[in-house]
């Protein structure tokens, strides 16, 4: 709002400036370069003395007017993005009122004493102002390939697994909005789309919309931020599949201020109809709560521990419910002086699922433990062990192990190889080599830690 106001003030200044120019030099309102207005007076004076001189003066006057017109044309062309017709013509900054829509105000923060100030020509004309308020747009491509044998849960040999489009901007002084659209071979889906109110009274942070539930760690992460190509087994078996718990709802979180650590409590209500829960009637909502504690151990190491709980109805019957309880712990090491060369992240998550069924209740358990080590500026090595019972039959337990190597050409792209062995409960074994190319264009917002 403030920004809008500032723009309008500047526009107002420009308008006033134009008006003043018009009043000051009505005869030469057309003249952008400000040719001395003494010239025509001198010409008239000369005309009174000598007819030949009068003719010369007339020609001189016409020449000046022509020059003025040429300058104006050049300025207009420069403003609309076409090359100036007159070589060496100055940019339309001085004296020329910016043509409507052809120039925009520099956004706050872009101007500096050394940089361009005031109106900048924008190449693309009339939509110029709308460009300033466009959200940050980014597209992240997630291309995966698989080799080897897997009869239970086979991946295609090559697949553009997902193209994630993110649109993020500040809505008004009270809120920001984030949209993540995921286009995959299954179709286009709104992965997340929510508004965040960061400045509510009482220190509350509220998100409204479709969001990833704040359950554990992996569930809150977008697939391109995972340290693996795939999601670990407990996610697939107990939390609704690769995409995890993701639904329309309201999320409210609060910092519990204390002198010991960062403590954040989150409560969420969801529609209750997603890959994990089934809503049989409107009141069948799903609930998620999370308590997260974080503490810096040293300036390079920290501990991050959380507990999560999710509750909702399932597809076994109108009164059958599913509860999932989770614990997660993360240890991070990143020496500040060598932050871009070296880091380690160790993480484990445990999931307990209790699924009611009209005939029998199933208590299933799953977990993973993983480590990622950056050993050079562009290289990461990782390992993961994961296992999980099936939510519907706890006697069936899948087990897996993975080794990973990741290479970062830059912050904006990443190439990953994952060797994965899986022993499925039915006895089938899978040995696979997975590949992944991640690439990002545009302005992608910072990720939550």
């Amino acid at each position, binding site marked *: 709002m403030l920004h809008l106001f500032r723009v309008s003030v500047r526009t107002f200044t420009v308008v006033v400036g134009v008006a003043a120019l018009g009043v000051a030099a009505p005869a030469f309102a057309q003249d952008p370069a400000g040719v001395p207005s003494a010239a025509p007076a001198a010409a008239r004076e000369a005309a009174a003395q000598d007819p030949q001189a009068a003719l010369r003066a007339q020609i001189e006057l016409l020449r000046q007017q022509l020059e003025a017109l040429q300058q104006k044309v050049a300025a207009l062309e420069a403003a609309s993005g076409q090359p100036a017709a007159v070589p060496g013509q100055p940019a339309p900054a001085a004296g020329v009122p910016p043509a409507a829509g052809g120039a925009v105000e520099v956004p706050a923060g872009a101007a*500096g004493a050394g940089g361009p100030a005031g109106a900048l020509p924008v190449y693309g004309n009339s939509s110029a102002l709308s460009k300033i308020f466009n959200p940050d747009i980014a597209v992240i491509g997630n291309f995966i390939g698989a080799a080897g044998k897997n009869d239970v849960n086979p991946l295609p040999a090559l697949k553009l697994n997902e193209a994630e489009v993110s649109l993020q901007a500040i809505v008004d002084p009270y809120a920001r909005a984030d949209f993540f659209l995921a286009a995959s071979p299954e179709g286009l889906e709104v992965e997340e789309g929510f508004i965040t109110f960061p400045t509510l009274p009482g220190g509350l942070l509220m998100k409204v919309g479709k969001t990833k539930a704040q359950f554990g760690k992996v569930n809150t992460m977008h697939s391109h931020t995972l340290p693996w190509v795939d999601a670990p087994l407990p996610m697939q078996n107990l939390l609704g599949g690769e995409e995890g718990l993701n639904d329309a709802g309201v999320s409210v979180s609060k910092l519990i201020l204390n002198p010991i650590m960062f403590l954040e409590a989150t409560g969420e209500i969801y529609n209750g109809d997603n890959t994990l829960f089934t809503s049989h009637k409107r009141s069948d909502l799903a609930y998620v709560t999370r308590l997260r504690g*974080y503490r810096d151990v040293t300036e390079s190491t920290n501990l991050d521990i959380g507990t999560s709980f999710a509750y909702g109805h399932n597809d076994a019957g109108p009164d059958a419910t599913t509860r999932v309880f989770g614990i997660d712990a993360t240890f991070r090491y990143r020496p500040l002086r060598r932050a871009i060369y070296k880091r380690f992240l160790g993480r484990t998550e445990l999931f307990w699922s209790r699924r009611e069924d009209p005939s029998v209740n199933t208590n299933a358990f799953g977990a993973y433990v993983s480590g990622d080590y950056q050993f050079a500026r562009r290289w990461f090595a990782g390992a993961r062990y994961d296992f999980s019972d099936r939510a519907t039959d706890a006697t069936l337990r899948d087990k897996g192990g993975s080794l990973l190597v990741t290479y970062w050409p830059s912050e904006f792209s990443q190439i990953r190889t994952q060797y994965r062995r899986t022993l499925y409960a039915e006895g089938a074994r899978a040995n696979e080599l997975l590949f992944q190319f991640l690439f990002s264009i545009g302005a992608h917002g910072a990720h939550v830690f």
Partner: protein
Amino acid sequence: MKAFTTLAFALLLGVSRLASAQNPLNVVTTTQDMASIAQEVGGDKIKITPLAKGYQDPHFVEAKPSFVLILNKARLLIVVGRDLEIGWLPALITQSRNPRIQPGAEGYLDPSTSAKILEMPAGAVTRAEGDVHPLGNPHYWLDPENGRRIAKAIQGKLAQMDPANAAYYAQREADFETRLNAAQQRWKGQMAPYKGLKVLTYHRSWANFADAFGLNVVGYVEPKPGIPPTPQHTLDVINAMKAQNIRIIMVEPYFDTKTPNSIASNTGARVLVMPPSVGGVPEAGDYFKLFDYDVNLLVDAIKATGAK
């Protein structure tokens, strides 16, 4: 009724917190450079907490939850701006639950808007040029002229937020300028004999420093901003340095010195681990000491290597 009591309690809590926050003013800065200048202006009327350490690469700071707690209590947030903190600060501000320091609010100050910014990109900006800063070079505090401008911006903001102490801030700012002017004369005097000296730097952190003290940055260890050194680029750099007799390589403390050292051993140049920020080395404890340290390091190295 219960809701009302809770609300009243919350309001009371809010008011009492606001009142207690009045004295001294709680200021958070993203870097130690901003903290040092803010301290010069604010004196004992403000309490300052910097987020990133001076020996840390300010582009790659982790958005730790402990920073959320610091930001939660801030009355004023002073950033470097120009997208320097784009990778970590926005998420922290959103999570801070602090309406006072949201961008655009009274307690959000970006002094770069009044500073002299170099390397403003002209024309199209693409990441084919590496991790370019579309809003210009954000390392602008490395010119004492900009130090003055930053101090002025901070003084204006503090006077606006704490009018009772406006005269105090104005007096301290004037004093800072006087001392900075004197120090600047001294630094310029030290550097004057070496005007136009050709140097190599690791990252593009030194544009304003070079501008202020007459250095000529002719190349970078990085082939492009944010892109680690490649063998071919390193070879090109070595050849260029030999051809132009360049003897100084300036490296920020958070970069690996392996490549600079190998360039140095091939060219007879000297690698200087030069902090671009207050706190980058223990000796560079404040804004004045930062320049003292860097200028002395540079002058000593120039004398030792006979660089021209």
